[in-house]
C-alpha cells in the first residue's frame, strides 16, 4: 500500500482530518491513488525526460525572447502537449490494468481539493503556454552557451530542471558547471544530488 500512503502524505494534514470521519479506503480511492502513484513514476522516467528534451532541442531555435509570440509557437505548443499527453496515457495504459481516462477524469473532477502536490503542479505546467515559451527559450540559450557542443550535456541540464519542478528552476546555473557535471551517468539519484549541490550558488 505504499502508493496509497504516499498519496496521503502529499496532502496537507487538514485533509486527513476532514476525511477522518469515514476512514474506509474505497475502491475508487485505491484506483485513484494507484494512478497518481504511476503518474509520479512516469514523470520521473528518463525516457519521458528524453522525449521532452528531444522536442525542445528540435524546435527551440525558432523561439525568440520578445514579448510578442510568433504564431508558430501555438502549433508547437499543441504538438508538445499532445506528445506529453500521448506518452503519459500510453504508459498509464501499460501500467494500470484497467486504466480508463474517462473514469480517472471523473475521479479528478470529484477531487478538486485533493489534486495538489508536485505531480499535479508539473502536469499543470505542461498546459501553460508561457511556461512552454520560457522552457524553449532556456533550451535555446543553453544551446547557444554550448555552441561548441559537448555531447550529452544539454539534455542532462534540462532534465534536472524538469525533475526539480518543471518551472525552469535553476536554469541560470552556469554552463561551465554543467559541463563539468557532464555525462549521462550523472543521472543516478546519488550523483544527481551531488550535482545539485555543486550547482547551488
Amino acid at each position, binding site marked *: 500500500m505504499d502508493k496509497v500512503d504516499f498519496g496521503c502524505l502529499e496532502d496537507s494534514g487538514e485533509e486527513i482530518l476532514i476525511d477522518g470521519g469515514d476512514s474506509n479506503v474505497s475502491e475508487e480511492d485505491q484506483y485513484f491513488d494507484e494512478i497518481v502513484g504511476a503518474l509520479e513514476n512516469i514523470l520521473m522516467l528518463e525516457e519521458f525526460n528524453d522525449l521532452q528534451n528531444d522536442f525542445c532541442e528540435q524546435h527551440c531555435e525558432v523561439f525568440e525572447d520578445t*514579448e*510578442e*509570440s*510568433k*504564431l508558430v*509557437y*501555438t*502549433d508547437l505548443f*499543441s504538438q508538445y*502537449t499532445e506528445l*506529453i*499527453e500521448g506518452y*503519459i*496515457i500510453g504508459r498509464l495504459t501499460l501500467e494500470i490494468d484497467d486504466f480508463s*481516462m474517462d473514469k*480517472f*477524469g471523473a475521479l*479528478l*473532477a470529484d*477531487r*478538486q481539493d485533493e*489534486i495538489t502536490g508536485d505531480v*499535479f503542479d508539473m*502536469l*499543470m505546467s*505542461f*498546459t501553460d*503556454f*508561457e511556461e512552454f515559451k520560457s522552457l524553449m527559450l532556456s533550451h535555446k540559450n543553453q544551446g547557444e552557451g554550448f555552441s561548441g557542443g559537448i555531447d550529452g550535456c544539454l539534455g542532462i541540464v534540462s532534465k534536472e530542471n524538469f525533475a526539480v519542478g518543471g518551472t525552469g528552476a535553476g536554469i541560470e546555473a552556469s554552463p561551465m558547471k554543467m559541463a563539468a557535471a557532464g555525462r549521462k551517468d550523472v543521472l543516478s539519484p546519488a550523483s544527481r544530488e551531488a550535482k545539485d549541490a555543486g550547482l547551488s550558488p
Partner: protein
Amino acid sequence: MGLLSIIRKVKAKEKECRLLILGLDNAGKTTILKKFNGEDINTISPTLGFNIKTLSHRGYLLNCWDVGGQQTIRSYWRNYFEATDGLIWVVDSADRVRIEDCKRELDNLMSQEKLAGASLMIFANKQDLAGAMSTDEIGEALGLNGEKFKTRHWSIVACSAVEGGGLLEGMDWMTDDISSRIFMLS
C-alpha cells in the same frame, strides 16, 4: 477531453477566465490591452503573431490573448478559440471603408462552434478621431440586432484606447457577464 485539459480545468484558479481579442488589423487590439494594463502605448507596431497578458480585474484573473489581425493571418485565429470565455471584438470606428470586412469577419466568428458560448464585447475604438462612427452606426453596420446575435450575450462600448475612455466600462461588462454565466452556476 484529455488528461491535461481535465487537470487544467479542475485545478484552474477560481475566477479565472480566458479572453480572446480579435479584430481587423490596425483596429487597436494591442493598444487596448496595453493601455488597460497601464503600459506604454507609444511604441506599438503591427502584431504579426500574438500577445498574452494576464490581468487582474475586480477579483478576476483575465488571461487575454491578442492575436494579429492582418488578412494573411486571420486564418490562424481559429487556433485560439479553444476554451474562450469572452471575445473582445475591436472595431476602428473611423474606418468606414472596411466596416463591411469587419462585419464579415465577425459573422464568421459568430458561426464558430468553439466560440458559441463566449460573451461578446465590441469596442468601438478610436472615438477620439474625427469622423468616428457612433456605437449605433457600428451596431447597425455589424447587424447586431439580427438573428445571429439573438442568443449571444453581447455589448458594444465606445472607447478610445489612446485616451483610455470606455475601456474600464467594457472590461467591467465582460467580467460581469462571464461571471454571471460561469461562476454563479456552481
